[in-house]
């Protein structure tokens, strides 16, 4: 297993084409825009080597029997599913921000199971190829991005109906040695500081969309792969100041990028679906289920730190014993732990797939994520309530340090005796970075927008069974003693 330092060194050997604020980036590891994201991902390596987190962050490879980082593991039991959630909470508590690596992990698990089933039905050899990649990922402890979301263009139209075919990643050429693909993937977490991208289709496909039913792996530095890094709220603070960043070490969100595939060649050994359109939906659902399962883990870990910030601020401001503040803190804890319950529940209700790997229960995983789209906003709203308007009006770090007005900032930012103005400003900035702007939107749309969860919930709701239960109680028609 790699350490965080070795992870950073491994990134320096790569040459991804990355653009940010109109400029080409020379070194992802050293650019201040990316340092927090690299730090957060690096922690997934260092925590795996720390004895206190070893139980959650490591696993035994079913391929080699070797000890591996859990982010490269294929779940083979309910215990694996539960440990993933606990691992995400544990890391989230340390970073207070997205640590990115779960996306690729979920992609590995989804593709592992679906390639097995494609091969079984079609006689292809995708699973064998994928296992070769998985061995490399596990032995080299690689960080893989999970690239699923296409730009989609006109949402009313299917991939093959788009006026611009690049609105969905697709095969433009099949060759003896591989395929050539074009298109783009959007909002891809950890894209610029990963070793490679696992690209998956984004929606159900029909026969006419077969060229869009494509799944493959590319190294980040592959020719034709271009990364355009997204802006974040207050992102220039990363190099303009220190204290005002809030979460200095780990920043906010996961560092999302637009990945463009401009006629990228992919050798057959890295192609895991090519035209098997009937498996596209199942792959999407398995990835989405795995990723939505996560959110009651990582977001609860972040909420733990956020609740701590609100509580500490209340203490500094002398409001912590007020009954309404205590009630709001309790409500924040209740909301956060409800999310955790959901993630643990969908893991406990998970099941084995034909490949022998395990996935979480899709209905409960979607409920988990739909709750995240509400609870995290409510937790943030309560934190804003507790913090007060100073959250939006606090003077800057530069004014606090200024020789002329700094004394005023320091004087009027103080609360109860014995606690510095600096401590209050730091907590305010942490709370600001965790709840104001980009970070909050991530809870809404990360792992799919709320409507995507609603669609899957409806598909899995089994309303006919509920109707039979009601009809029996209402004495409608002939009903057996038990409806099961």
């Amino acid at each position, binding site marked *: 297993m790699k350490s965080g330092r070795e992870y950073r060194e491994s990134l320096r050997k790569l040459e991804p084409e990355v653009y940010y604020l109109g400029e080409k980036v020379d070194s992802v590891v050293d650019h201040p825009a990316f340092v927090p994201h690299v730090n957060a991902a690096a922690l997934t390596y260092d925590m795996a080597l720390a004895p206190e987190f070893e139980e959650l962050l490591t696993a035994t490879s079913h391929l080699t029997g070797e000890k591996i980082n859990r982010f490269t593991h294929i779940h083979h039991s309910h215990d694996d599913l539960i440990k993933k959630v606990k691992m995400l909470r544990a890391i989230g508590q340390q970073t207070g921000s997205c640590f990115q690596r779960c996306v690729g992990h979920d992609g590995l698990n989804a593709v592992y199971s679906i390639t097995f089933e494609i091969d079984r039905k079609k006689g292809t050899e995708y699973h064998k190829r994928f296992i070769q990649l998985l061995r490399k990922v596990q032995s080299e402890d690689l960080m893989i991005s999970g690239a699923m979301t296409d730009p989609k263009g006109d949402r009313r139209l299917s991939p093959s109906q788009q006026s611009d075919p690049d609105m969905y990643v697709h095969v433009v050429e099949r060759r003896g040695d591989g395929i050539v693909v074009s298109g783009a993937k959007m909002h891809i977490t950890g894209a610029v500081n990963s070793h490679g991208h696992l690209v998956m289709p984004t929606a159900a496909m029909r026969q006419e969309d077969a060229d869009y039913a494509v799944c493959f792996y590319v190294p980040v530095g592959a020719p034709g792969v271009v990364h355009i890094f997204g802006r974040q709220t207050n992102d220039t603070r990363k190099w303009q100041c220190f204290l005002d960043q809030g979460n200095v070490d780990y920043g906010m969100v996961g560092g999302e990028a637009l990945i463009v595939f401009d006629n990228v060649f992919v050798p057959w050994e890295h192609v895991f679906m090519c035209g098997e359109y009937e498996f596209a939906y199942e792959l999407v659902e398995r990835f989405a289920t795995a990723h939505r399962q996560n959110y009651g883990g990582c977001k609860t870990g972040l909420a733990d730190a956020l609740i701590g910030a609100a509580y500490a601020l209340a203490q500094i401001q002398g409001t912590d014993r007020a009954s309404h503040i205590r009630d709001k803190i309790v409500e924040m804890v209740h909301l956060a732990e409800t999310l955790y319950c959901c993630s643990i529940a969908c893991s406990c209700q998970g*099941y084995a797939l034909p490949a022998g790997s395990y996935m979480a229960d899709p209905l409960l995983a979607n409920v988990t994520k739909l709750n995240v789209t509400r609870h995290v906003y409510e937790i943030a709203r309560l934190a804003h309530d507790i913090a007060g308007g100073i959250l939006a009006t606090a003077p800057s770090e530069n004014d606090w340090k200024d020789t002329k007005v700094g004394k005023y900032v320091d004087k009027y930012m103080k609360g109860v005796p014995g606690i510095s103005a600096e401590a209050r400003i730091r907590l305010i900035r942490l709370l600001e970075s965790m709840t104001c702007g980009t970070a909050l939107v991530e809870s809404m749309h990360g792992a799919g927008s709320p409507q995507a969860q609603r669609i899957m919930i409806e598909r899995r709701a089994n309303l006919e069974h509920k109707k039979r239960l009601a009809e029996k109680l209402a004495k409608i028609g002939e009903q057996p003693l*038990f409806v*099961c």
Partner: protein
Amino acid sequence: MRKCRVAFKFCGCCNPYVDLSRIARYLHTIAESCNDFEIVPLASGDAGVVVILCGCSRACADRAENRIGKLATVVVAGESVDGEMVPEPELPLAVGRKLVSVLCQLKGRCNPCS
């Protein structure tokens, strides 16, 4: 020669995705009509074949203890029969076919009914 003995093991039906009772009732119907096997309680310890009936993919009843000592099992886990996907309306028929097939195979190599 005694009839083949088949038992059911239900998962507990906390929130079943499929109607397991319908499957069980259908298998009872087959047993009565074909006269080739009989349904016995699992607790009798007398069954050669057990049909494990789970309301969803979680397959809570598909545990080693329910397979030990059995010549064969048929596992229903939500909309699947022994891992093969089957739409809910077709489940009783599919399970019936699977059970008959299993019983025929067993009769071919041993005598589960004696």
